[in-house]
Each structure stands twice: as structure tokens, then as C-alpha cells.
């Protein structure tokens, strides 16, 4: 337990100490909200889809959590490169606990980053229908954070160095974001896109957030919750296995 707590705390300390990283990582969601939110707003309205900010905000929140979480997981490569990983791997602590501590820490960081974006969304004009939706929204945010931190950790457990990182960004993380319905409604898409969106885990996260925050859902909150919960568990188990196999 102490091990999990200490590794979680380490992750948070690193986050709070790198203010420039916090600020830098907020640029992207801000840009999406401003450029897309206000840029596409008029068209979206004319197409009879209502307020675009209301639609986009859950997508941007999901995006922020996705990127921060994957990045937190992938930080494992840094620790391998700079050597700190060795220190944790020779400690008399089962690897699974080390993996859990790291993952919870990374997920917490992603969640915090998500909170900041929620606030930015409010400033940009986003409104929640009922405040009772907030606990459920938190649950969805936490699940997205957990799922993708675990995914990042799993990937970083097999990557030896930074060279694979670009590959992961361009062929996994970017598609996960763009195909998730974060930016456009999933209804009435061409078949290929529709299939891709259905197998994209983030689709369920964004849909869940949208369901509880903006009362617009494609799959429905219950389906979203089940899919996210199941996927998080599976990825955590796979991640833990891969992590426990690391040799240096």
C-alpha cells in the first residue's frame, strides 16, 4: 500500500513541479475550443445540431485526458532512459503494485488536467443541464484517464526508447482522438468511419461525458460505462503483465 501511495505521490509531485508542462498542455484544448468551437459553431447551428460548444466541450475534455494519460503512461520510457526505473524494479515490491502506483498517479494527473479544461469550457460558454450529472461525469473522466494511462504504460513496457514514440502518437493516439466523435456526431457516418468509431475506446468516453453533461448520446451512458469499465480492466491486466516482464 505504501509503495502504491509513494509512487502515486511521486507522479503528482512531478506534475505540480512542471508548471510549464501544465500550461503548454492547455494550449491545445484552448485552440480546439476557440478555433473549432467558434469557427464551426454557425455551420453546426444551421445544420440543425444546436450549440456546437455544448457538443464539443465533452470531446475536448476527453481529448485532454487522452493525451495527458497516454503521455503519463509513456513517461515510463523516460524513467527507463534516465534510470529511475531500475530503482523501482530492484525494490522488494511486487511489480504489479509498482505498475498500479504509477498508473494511478498518471491517471490522477490526467484527471487534474481534465478539471482545468472543464473550467476553461465553462468560461467558453459550456453549461451543464443538471448538477447531479457531475459525479457521473467524474466517473467517466476517471475511467478515460485510467484506461489510457494503463494503455500508455503497456506500450511503454515494450518500447525500448523514444524512437517508437512518434509511431505511437501518429498511428494510435491521433486516430483514437480524431475517430472518437470528439469533434463530430457519430450518427449517419459513412460505414467505414462508423465502424472505426465503434471500435475506438475513446468514443465511449466522449459519448458518456456527452450523455451526462449535455444530454446527447449515441451509444447511451450505460453502454459507455460497461465498455469503458471492461476495457480498463483488460488493459490494466495486460499492462501489468507486460510491465512485470520488463528486463533491463
Amino acid at each position: 500500500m505504501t509503495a502504491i501511495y509513494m509512487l502515486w505521490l511521486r507522479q503528482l509531485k512531478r506534475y505540480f513541479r512542471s508548471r510549464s508542462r501544465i500550461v503548454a498542455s492547455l494550449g491545445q484544448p484552448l485552440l480546439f475550443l476557440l478555433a473549432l468551437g467558434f469557427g464551426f459553431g454557425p455551420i453546426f447551428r444551421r445544420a440543425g445540431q444546436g450549440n456546437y460548444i455544448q457538443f464539443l466541450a465533452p470531446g475536448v475534455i476527453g481529448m485532454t485526458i487522452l493525451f495527458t494519460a497516454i503521455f503519463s503512461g509513456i513517461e515510463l520510457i523516460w524513467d527507463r532512459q534516465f534510470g529511475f526505473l531500475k530503482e523501482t524494479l530492484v525494490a522488494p515490491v511486487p511489480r504489479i503494485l509498482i505498475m498500479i502506483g504509477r498508473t494511478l498517479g498518471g491517471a490522477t494527473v490526467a484527471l487534474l488536467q481534465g478539471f482545468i479544461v472543464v473550467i476553461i469550457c465553462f468560461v467558453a460558454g459550456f453549461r451543464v443541464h443538471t448538477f447531479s450529472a457531475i459525479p457521473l461525469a467524474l466517473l467517466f473522466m476517471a475511467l478515460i484517464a485510467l484506461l489510457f494511462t494503463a494503455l500508455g504504460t503497456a506500450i511503454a513496457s515494450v518500447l525500448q526508447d523514444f524512437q517508437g514514440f512518434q509511431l505511437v502518437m501518429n498511428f494510435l493516439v491521433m486516430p483514437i482522438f480524431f475517430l472518437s466523435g470528439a469533434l463530430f456526431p457519430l450518427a449517419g457516418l459513412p460505414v467505414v468511419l462508423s465502424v472505426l468509431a465503434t471500435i475506438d475506446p475513446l468514443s465511449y468516453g466522449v459519448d458518456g461525458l456527452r450523455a451526462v453533461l449535455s444530454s446527447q448520446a449515441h451509444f447511451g451512458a450505460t453502454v459507455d460505462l460497461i465498455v469503458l469499465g471492461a476495457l480498463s480492466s483488460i488493459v490494466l491486466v495486460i499492462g501489468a503483465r507486460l510491465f512485470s516482464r520488463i528486463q533491463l
Partner: protein
Amino acid sequence: MIEVEHLVKSFGDIHAVRDISFNVHKGEIFAFLGPNGAGKTTTIKMLTTLLRPSSGRISIDGLDPVHHQNEVRKRFGIVFQDPSTDDELTAWENMDLHGALYGVPRRVRTERIEKLLRLFELWDRRGHPLKQFSGGMKRRLEIARALLHTPRIIFLDEPTLGLDPQTRNQLWAQVRKLNEEEQVTVFLTTHYMEEAERVSQRIAIIDHGQIVAQGTPAELKAQTSAATLEEAFLALTGSTIRDEGADQFAQMRTMAKMWSRRR
């Protein structure tokens, strides 16, 4: 304390360690010497549960590191050849995290951290992140950290790398003191032959993954009719040029393998 029989480690077609056997007795200071790329670090990684041996048997205090990982890990402290600290955290936080991972109770932890940081003259800088430390200060912190959980065995992989003579002397004095007063077993590597000769009771010399000689410093010198351990070492391991050549080939093979795996 440490028993190794027919230990082998290969990375693909690179044979880093080829069939080595040796024993380190309880309370002994044992030096493991060899040219660059000889297989010292690879051996230490296998002894400390970071790498699985390709074949052979290891026993640390009667336990097999492959099967009783956590039991073995509790028994040793290690200073790695390369840095292994978190540079964003302070000296104190690095120590505290280590103590917590090794299950040292909080009160004992606080006391021992203070004692060790003072001993290695880092106490005044305890609140500074390690990224503000000099290379030597970081090294000292790693050594202090390895002693925090009062291990029965310490592995020191080139611990004096990058340290000034004062700190080197102080470090070896500490190691000997621990060894004499608490019978801590020490397994060390170094490229400074006079250090090895001064502190170690027994030495094994490894070259190209094989042990070429074992014994007390006096025995090794007698065996090669050398005046110093450095001469004995050179007599046993040959010219540097040959070794560097071999190492370059090994590196090229590693590179080639990395490329072919990527494609």
C-alpha cells in the same frame, strides 16, 4: 553468501557472460574486475533480479533470484553503474521513496536518512531537486540510498565513477567500516586497480564473459609475477587494443540486430 554456477547470458548472438562460476563468502569484500564490455554489469543484473540468466544457477543467501525475487531484493542494496535517481525530486524525497519501497518504518527512515545524508555531506542540500546537483553529489546520494535499508549485501557497480579522490577515499572507508562492523558482504566492480587492491579480500577477473583468474590480490600477482594488481590485470586480460576491437564488433552487432529487428 553469493554462489554462482555455470552462469550464462546471451543477447541473441552476443554472449555477454559465458559459463562463469564463483562464490562470495559472507562478510567478504569481493572485486569483480574486467575490461569494458567484459560482462560485469550483466552479471550484476542477473544477481540482482533485473535480468534472467540464459542458463546456470545463482544463489543469494540461499535463495534463487529468479524464483524468490522479492526475498532476494530485500537482502541487497545496489549502486548502479548508470544514474538511477529521479532528478525532479529532492535528495530527501529520493531517500524517503527508497525507504518506503523497502518497508523501512517511517521513524527509522527519518533517522537513517538524516544520518546518511550527513555522512555523505548532503544534509544541507536535502531540499534541493537532484537536477541542481553535481555529478559527484548525485553519486554520493545513490550510495547513501543503497545503504538506507541496512542491506546484508551491497553491489557497487563502479561506484567511484566520476568522484574526486576525497570522496573516493571516504566511500571506501565507509564500505570497509560497514564490512568490519556489520559484516556486510560487498560485491564491487571498478576500473581503478589500486582501489580494488586496497579494499578487496578476493578478486575475480572476467574477460569476454569468462573468468580468467580468481584469488586474493597477492595470489593474482604471484600467478602473473606482477608487482602491482594493474600489471597482473593487464597480463591476464591482454592489450587494450584487442579489447576495444572486440567491443566495437559487439557494438556493431548490437546495432545491426536493433536495425533488423525494427524492420
